[in-house]
């Protein structure tokens, strides 16, 4: 299949620090591409540029052959790009269910007048979104928390809520920033499965994660960043053997312990 998202020589700096420099890669539908690298390597910054939160200073971003460099996030969302956040961005003032429904914004929005007057069209759209959201909450294991205030959830559950919200958009490209942080091994596996399922539906997934077991297990392709630059890329097996990657990121005793059989 053809390229869905491509990033070409993208870069940005903050007060002299080149947070990301000259990074390129591309992503096809159904593919899971992981970006790994030490803390501060520029992974989140890269996500922020792709998703329009930051304006890149150099390079291009193309989404389905359209140049979308620096485009507003809401316009990107309309073009099928969705993401989660490393620093959680939950609608704390809303219920868990409403958070998930908000993910359906693009499909449920309509005319202001219809909403003000509670016209059947508006009601119908809201109802559809609600049903979809309930299904998604079920999928991430939050069905019982639907009516609680989002502010009352524990950290790990908030993380899942973000994933549900991002999935609600039925994205073509999904950016996940450390989705498994704060989850134990078993919970991580659930998230694994979900990501693989979503990818199987044809969604292109860009993943940042420090849980190497997960990354090795599900990635089709891995890009390694260090100090804002791409230092290696390839399939999981190649990358995990790359000495530079081991030195900068994995550490020498990252080899799976005998007790932990690698799943990949």
């Amino acid at each position, binding site marked *: 299949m053809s390229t869905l998202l491509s990033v070409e020589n993208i870069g940005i700096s903050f007060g002299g620090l080149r947070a990301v420099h000259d990074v390129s890669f591309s992503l096809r539908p159904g593919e899971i591409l992981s970006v790994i690298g030490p803390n501060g390597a520029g992974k*989140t910054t890269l996500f*922020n540029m792709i998703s329009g*939160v930051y304006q890149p200073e150099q390079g291009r971003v193309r989404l389905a052959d359209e140049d979308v460099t620096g485009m507003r996030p809401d316009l990107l969302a309309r073009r099928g790009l969705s993401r989660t*956040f*490393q*620093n959680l*961005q939950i609608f704390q003032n809303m219920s868990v269910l409403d958070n998930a429904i908000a993910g359906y914004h693009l499909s449920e929005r309509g005319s202001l007048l219809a909403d003000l007057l509670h016209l059947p069209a508006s009601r119908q759209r809201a109802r559809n979104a609600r049903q979809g959201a309930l299904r998604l909450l079920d999928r991430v294991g939050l069905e019982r928390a639907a009516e609680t205030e989002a502010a009352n959830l524990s950290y790990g559950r908030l993380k899942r809520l973000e994933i549900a919200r991002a999935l609600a958009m039925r994205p073509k490209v999904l950016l996940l920033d450390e989705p498994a942080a704060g989850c134990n091994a078993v919970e991580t596996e659930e998230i694994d499965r979900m990501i693989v399922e979503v990818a199987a539906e044809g969604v292109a997934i860009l993943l940042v994660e420090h849980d190497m077991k997960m990354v090795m297990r599900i990635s089709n392709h891995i890009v390694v960043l260090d100090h804002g630059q791409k230092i290696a890329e390839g399939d999981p097996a190649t990358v995990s053997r790359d000495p530079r990657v081991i030195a900068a990121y994995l550490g020498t005793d990252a080899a799976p312990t005998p007790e932990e059989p690698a799943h990949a």
Partner: protein
Amino acid sequence: MPELLQFLFSGLTVGAVYALVALGFTIIYNASDVVNFAQGEFVMLGGMITVFTYAAGLPLPLAALVAIVVTSGIGVALNKLAIEPARGAPVVSLIIITIGASIFLRGAAQVLFGKQIHRFPAFSGDAPLRIGGATILPQSLWVIAGGLAVFVALYLFFTRTLTGKAVLATSNNRLAAQLVGINTNWVMTLSFGLSAAIGALAGVLATPITNTAYDIGIAVALKGFAAAMLGGMGNPKGALVGGLLLGIIEAMTAGYISSQYKDAAAFVIILLVLFAMPQGLFGAKQTERV
């Protein structure tokens, strides 16, 4: 040219009062993100208590000191009795509490002091100083000097002292502040005490120029607030520059354009500045990552 100079003097006089009020907002804001709507009442109390203690026979400096100490005590009481019990309330609720406090203090002053307008003599007489064909009253110099002194003190407090940092830490992240051992209640008490003292000082210095009455607080707070926002909330430099600038803009507009629309001009400038610099002139840009 003497006109220009006269307008400038006028602007500095008025602006220094605004700056003093704006400086008063800084500490409480820095400790809690709350804009204290009762700040104007602190200014009023500073002036009024001085008026009455002076009339009761205390020498002026002593009367002023009493006013500052008493007002500071009222600030502490406000924190202890109204802000601290509301611990954990959202910032808007705290702001409404300060609005309530402002109404309360105004009402109490009305009952206690009456509704008359008052003034006490200028510290160094009323003989104007002539400079380049324009005149300025010695009291204006007192106000300007007071503004500068408070600015320097606050600047040092926030940049050089650990207590100052503790104040900033408290508003930035209250939970974390507790976790490093900061007694956040004490920080709040300190902030209210200091803010009230600065407010009272403003009242003491400005009253010979502006006069005082039980209900001057609202107008004073409004201008001080606008000045603080123009300069950038929370930054002492912003408060000082914002206040002086606001005063000068008003005076220049009154002098050269239209005295009718001088307040309007001030707000138009504030709007323009904010469109270009959404955090005011010196406001800190928030760094919040996603």
